[in-house]
């Protein structure tokens, strides 16, 4: 199975034993849990996982139970990058000194948007700058969900969170989502990619590529949260598709800083009529409900404009241009 080349079938993946086990306490319909399951399907051998504090960490390791069939470490909220650095360095030197088996052990760090955009960005940036060999997976549910849906640097414009509430005076979050994946590309790192669980094959291929690359790799995965987004739990995977189809969350890779669109987004670049209006995505979520009132409906236009601007910038980086008008 040459997974990083996409040479596998769904049966191959479905038949692979789960390393992220059932019995975790994530909410019904949690796309982050799906993301973790799929990423762990992409492992190639002995793997050590470290998690930042957050939904997936808490939901998967309530003593004495653990949902991890691999060695797993959690230390604190801001330390996913630092943990990975320590583990990878220890493996390197212990192998060199002959104290452990001379075999490849992959290191994967999982963190939410809290532990990545905000409190964890320093450790991530440092770990990448030092060139440690690990895969960093950001499961982005666009708020500090574990502590009760507070806004993060990854919360999009106009979204309701408990610390960016939508009321009669303020329409939710006033700031745009931090372009974290672009920030990571600017680190001059070997591999950065975005992924969404609906496009499971693309996600698994990218995860495996990230594992195989020599040096740090960053994977930004979109993970809808029915609880925080006030959306139907059954629609979590569908929302990840809509995010791609509206170009709110385009799928791309940057291999040695060369951007290239991934197939699901390339389809839209080549046939712009396929690009869906952001409204379709927003109206499925209660966190944007206030935008569908006369007072705040202008913000939907802002979101559309902002989405189009970022999309066009991305197309330019990928060497494509958007002909004609945007959706």
């Amino acid at each position, binding site marked *: 199975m040459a997974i990083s080349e996409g040479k596998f079938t*769904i*049966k191959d*993946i*479905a*038949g692979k034993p*789960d390393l*992220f*086990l*059932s*019995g*975790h*306490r*994530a*909410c*019904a*319909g*949690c*796309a*982050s*849990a*799906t993301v973790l*399951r*799929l990423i762990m399907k992409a492992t190639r051998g002995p793997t050590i996982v470290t998690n930042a504090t957050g939904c997936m960490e808490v939901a*998967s*390791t309530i*003593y*004495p*139970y*653990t*949902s991890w*069939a691999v060695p797993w470490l959690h230390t604190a909220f801001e330390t996913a990058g630092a943990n990975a650095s320590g583990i990878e360095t220890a493996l390197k030197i212990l192998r060199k000194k002959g104290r452990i088996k001379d075999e490849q052990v992959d290191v994967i760090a999982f963190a939410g948007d809290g532990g990545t955009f905000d409190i964890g960005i320093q450790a991530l940036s440092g770990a990448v700058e030092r060139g440690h060999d690990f895969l960093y997976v950001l499961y982005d549910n666009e708020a500090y969900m574990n502590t009760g849906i507070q806004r993060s640097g990854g919360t999009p414009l106009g979204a309701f969170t408990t610390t960016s509430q939508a009321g009669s005076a303020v329409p939710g979050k006033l700031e745009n989502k931090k372009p974290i994946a672009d920030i990571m590309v600017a680190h001059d790192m070997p591999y950065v990619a975005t992924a969404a*669980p*609906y496009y*499971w094959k693309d996600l698994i291929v990218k995860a495996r590529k990230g594992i195989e690359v020599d040096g740090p790799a960053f994977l930004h995965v979109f993970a809808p949260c*029915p609880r925080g987004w006030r959306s*139907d*739990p*059954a*629609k*979590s*995977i*569908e929302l990840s598709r809509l995010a791609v189809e509206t170009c709110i969350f385009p799928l791309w890779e940057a291999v040695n800083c060369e951007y290239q669109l991934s197939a699901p987004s390339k389809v839209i670049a080549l046939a712009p009529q396929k690009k869906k209006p952001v409204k379709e995505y927003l109206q499925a979520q209660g966190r944007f409900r206030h935008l569908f009132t006369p007072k705040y409906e202008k913000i939907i236009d802002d979101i559309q404009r902002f989405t189009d601007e970022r999309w066009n910038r991305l197309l330019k980086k990928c060497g494509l241009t958007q002909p004609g008008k945007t959706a």
Partner: protein
Amino acid sequence: MSSKEKSWKEASPAGVCWKASTTYLTGDWKTYAPLRDLEKCTKCLLCVLFCPDGAIHWKPEKNDIEFDSNFCKGCGICANECPSKAIVMKIE
């Protein structure tokens, strides 16, 4: 569901643990349970991949999938994503 709680002398140090969460059954969380129409199911296995709880298993020896009620939380993702609309969510 939990074992007898140990004294500090007996407990593993620093909270290190091994007990697989597959012994913690989350199936009783659900209100709705998935019901599959075998005629419509094409065994595309998308539901197996998308299930957040890994509560649908692909059984190659049976050439079929199996719904695991012990872990299904009734989210309905499988029903929503099934390309042949072979799954409906019914009140348990």
